[in-house]
């Protein structure tokens, strides 16, 4: 059952994670500042909380799903080295020799 959910890709690459964190912190901080000033002017702290919650929702929408903009810099892995049984044995022999010395 969970295998279907696991088949959705949810990861972000490293630069994407940094971007996501900066985006949600920025959105929440800006909404908090706007809410604080607005609440101070109309003297209703409830509106501060509402604006803050709106910022929370927006940042949830922006950063929780792994949008394509967070996976623009995929890691470049080394190409797969074809594994030969002979070379493997040789390298192990080399290691053994080194240890003996």
């Amino acid at each position, binding site marked *: 059952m969970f295998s279907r959910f696991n088949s959705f890709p949810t990861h*972000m690459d490293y630069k994407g994670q940094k971007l996501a964190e900066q985006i*949600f*912190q920025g959105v929440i901080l800006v909404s*908090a500042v706007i809410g604080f000033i607005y609440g*101070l002017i109309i003297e209703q*702290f409830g509106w*501060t909380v509402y604006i*803050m919650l709106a910022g*929370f929702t927006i940042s*949830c929408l922006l950063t929780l799903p792994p949008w394509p903009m967070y996976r623009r810099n995929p890691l470049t892995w080394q190409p797969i080295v074809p594994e030969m049984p002979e070379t493997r044995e040789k390298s192990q022999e080399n290691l053994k020799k080194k240890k003996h010395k």
Partner: protein
Amino acid sequence: MNTVLSRANSLFAFSLSVMAALTFGCFITTAFRDRSVPVNIHVSRVFLKNVDDFTGPRERSDLGFVTFDLSADLRPIFDWNVKQLFLYLSAEYATKSNVLNQVVLWDKIVQRGQNTRLELKEMKTKYYFFDDGNGLRANRNVTLTLSWNVVPNAGILPLVMGSGHISVPFPESYESTKSY
């Protein structure tokens, strides 16, 4: 930050921290504000009865009856850190047995959004004004004060005394109680 759950976790934690900071800001912007307003109390009628105090030692005690008018504009108190006010009218007087007697005669809750202009006429006291003896008769100096508790969103719970109190002389004689 790699999975949806870890992102949700850090987002939620950050929002809570920011919310705590906002609440502290709300407290600090109002912490040093003066929550006292002028209050106008006028006493229209005072009389005394000498009745059995069933809660006490079953002796005849003084029971005062006060009818008062009250006017105050509470609008300046309601800033963004005030949820409601608990107003109470208290009487203070000195007797031979006690230097300080305080009795709460009446109270009222004013919530945010309710009418903040108090114009009360001919109000009767809510609670019995019982003295624990006969200290009310011919007491020249019974002081009525309106005070209030400010119930805030965040921070301390200040107790404010309204400026403007009134001193009431109590009568020398008791109102005759009808006995049936």
